[in-house]
């Protein structure tokens, strides 16, 4: 009977209830989006850093990978030392550089990665073959679009341009053998990968036996922190960062995103709370005589409280159900906009849906629904029956 009375009260003013549900739905959608945003980047970065199975990243001392142009010299010696550790099963050196494809009207710039193709973790080959020889490159779609090249074409690539001589330097003729997706680069960033010794040689003496980064894969069950400490002691000119600590650093850098999400999520909850409280209070005020009569004929205060809380909860949950769908749609739309931010790795998402996010949003809205019903239910249950009936009779 309580459920029937609660639903009947809501249906009595159907359009008004619908508007309130829509209002809560907007609030719920924003809340879900904020919950997804607060964890999305962290989850996304975690997936990015762990997807290739590397446990340590080793960069020039005091730097983060590719945070500066600093390089590690005598890289082959470092690689040999690293491979000497019993827990290390693979070492992938990476050198980054800018390259140019000379054209009659100038040149097309791109990012080049010198890699050991046997263990590299920077790109996923989509088509063709990997850099199987010194004359091969694999490129991404943005590079192909900018240069108009196709697989099998031979291109001239240079590592620099001398404005005084008006000539490119470190030039090589290389064959496009594969099309790839570069995991850590943005989709619109033109990129090529070639063998590490080739890129080092193209850079001249400045890049001889130098790399920007080593990615290290450890045996299963190995203690990454212990290897990290070992690297710090044995090779003091580098900094080793474990994936776990990299994730921690990313999380720390993303804390302002979480704060923003918490603030906006809280605002959406407060708006939802006020909306439901206002609507249910108005509804109770309209039924004040009816409630007084119910109390007069023996309906308990608990019944009145339950009925009004049910109304409040029903609005919140209906809004939440609608809002979760709306939130997923808007999150997808917003994500599509945000991932086009220049320089952002292609694999990064701002909004990542996890069932836990939906449950969190639903739980919070249910709590808000109950909280929003407290004042109107207290008002309804504490009506002075005789006075209300007297005033209703006069009114």
């Amino acid at each position: 009977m309580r459920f029937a009375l609660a639903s009947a009260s809501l249906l009595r003013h159907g359009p008004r209830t619908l508007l309130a549900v829509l209002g809560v739905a907007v609030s719920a959608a924003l809340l879900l989006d904020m919950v997804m945003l607060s964890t999305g980047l962290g989850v996304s970065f975690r997936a990015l850093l762990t997807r290739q199975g590397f446990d340590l990243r080793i960069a020039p001392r005091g730097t983060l990978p590719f945070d500066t142009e600093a390089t590690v010299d005598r890289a082959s010696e470092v690689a040999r030392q690293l491979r000497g550790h019993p827990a290390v099963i693979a070492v992938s050196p990476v050198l980054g550089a800018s390259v140019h494809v000379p054209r009659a009207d100038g040149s097309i710039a791109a990012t080049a990665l010198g890699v050991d193709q046997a263990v590299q973790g920077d790109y996923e080959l989509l088509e063709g073959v990997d850099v199987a020889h010194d004359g091969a490159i694999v490129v991404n779609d943005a590079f192909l679009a900018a240069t108009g090249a196709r697989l099998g074409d031979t291109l001239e690539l240079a590592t620099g341009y001398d404005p005084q001589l008006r000539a490119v330097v470190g030039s090589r003729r290389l064959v496009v053998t594969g099309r790839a997706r570069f995991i850590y680069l943005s989709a619109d960033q033109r990129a090529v990968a070639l063998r590490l010794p080739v890129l080092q040689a193209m850079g001249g003496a400045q890049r001889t036996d130098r790399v920007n980064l080593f990615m290290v894969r450890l045996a299963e069950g190995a203690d990454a922190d212990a290897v990290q400490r070992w690297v710090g002691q044995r090779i003091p000119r580098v900094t080793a960062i474990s994936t776990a600590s990299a994730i921690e650093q990313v999380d720390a850098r993303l804390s302002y995103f979480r704060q923003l999400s918490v603030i906006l999520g809280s605002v959406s909850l407060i708006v939802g709370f006020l909306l439901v409280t206002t609507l249910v209070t108005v509804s109770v005020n309209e039924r004040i005589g009816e409630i007084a009569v119910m109390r007069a004929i023996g309906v308990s205060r608990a019944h009145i409280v339950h009925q009004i809380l049910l109304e409040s909860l029903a609005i919140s949950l209906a809004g939440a159900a609608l809002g979760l769908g709306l939130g997923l749609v808007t999150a997808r739309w917003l994500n599509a906009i945000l991932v086009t931010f220049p320089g952002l790795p292609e694999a990064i998402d701002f909004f990542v849906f996890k069932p836990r996010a939906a449950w969190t949003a639903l739980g919070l809205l249910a709590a808000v629904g109950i909280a929003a019903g407290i004042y109107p239910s207290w008002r309804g249950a504490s009506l002075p029956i005789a006075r209300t009936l007297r005033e209703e009779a006069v009114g």
Partner: protein
Amino acid sequence: MSAIPVRPAAAAVAPRPGEPLLIASRLRREYRLGAETVHAVRDVSLTIGSGEYVAIVGPSGCGKSTLLHLLGAIDRPDGGSLAIGGRDIARLGDAEATAFRLHQVGFVFQRFYLVPTLTARENVELPMAEAGRRGADRARRARELLDYVGLLGRERHRPAQLSGGEQQRVAIARALANDPALLLADEPTGELDLRTGAEVVALFRRLNEDGTTIVVVTHDEELARAASRVLHMRDGVIVHDAPADREAR
């Protein structure tokens, strides 16, 4: 129409043999109206026996409705005592007073106050549901009561689909739902035209003939004449208490 259906377990409140159903002694109720204190009921004493039909009449604002609210335990007196069926009503807490009203008192109001979104039958079922009666049992009794008030064919109608007289008859059926010891009515014909008002008067008379104790507050002379006893109130005091002029009925 059948005789009033009575629930077997009814009449949990029953006066001792020879004692009146209701004994009020020096009942007093005051309330503030701005800076002024209104003495709505002043030292009212009365007794009402089981099966009596009492009408309370008097000018507006004389304290009739306040007295009725006190008798029905929806308001608490500021002084005096009130016993119904030997039970002290004046000192009941809210939960006890609510349970007392649910099981022992039936209320009928001037404005009917049916729940507009429930059908006639569901409105009658409401006090029974609150009393914890099972669905099939209360539906059966609701149909019996609607039959008693002449509305069996209208049980699925909502209040908006019923006339004023029909709504008041549903409200009377609702008041009888839990077999109250006492039926209290506050201007039950106040919103009705002459014809439908007369129907309600006849229904009250029949209810009383079938054994229901009734106290009705009214301006309606016809309704008052139907009573066995009429109390005249003025300025919060019962100024005249006499049997109704039965010859005039």
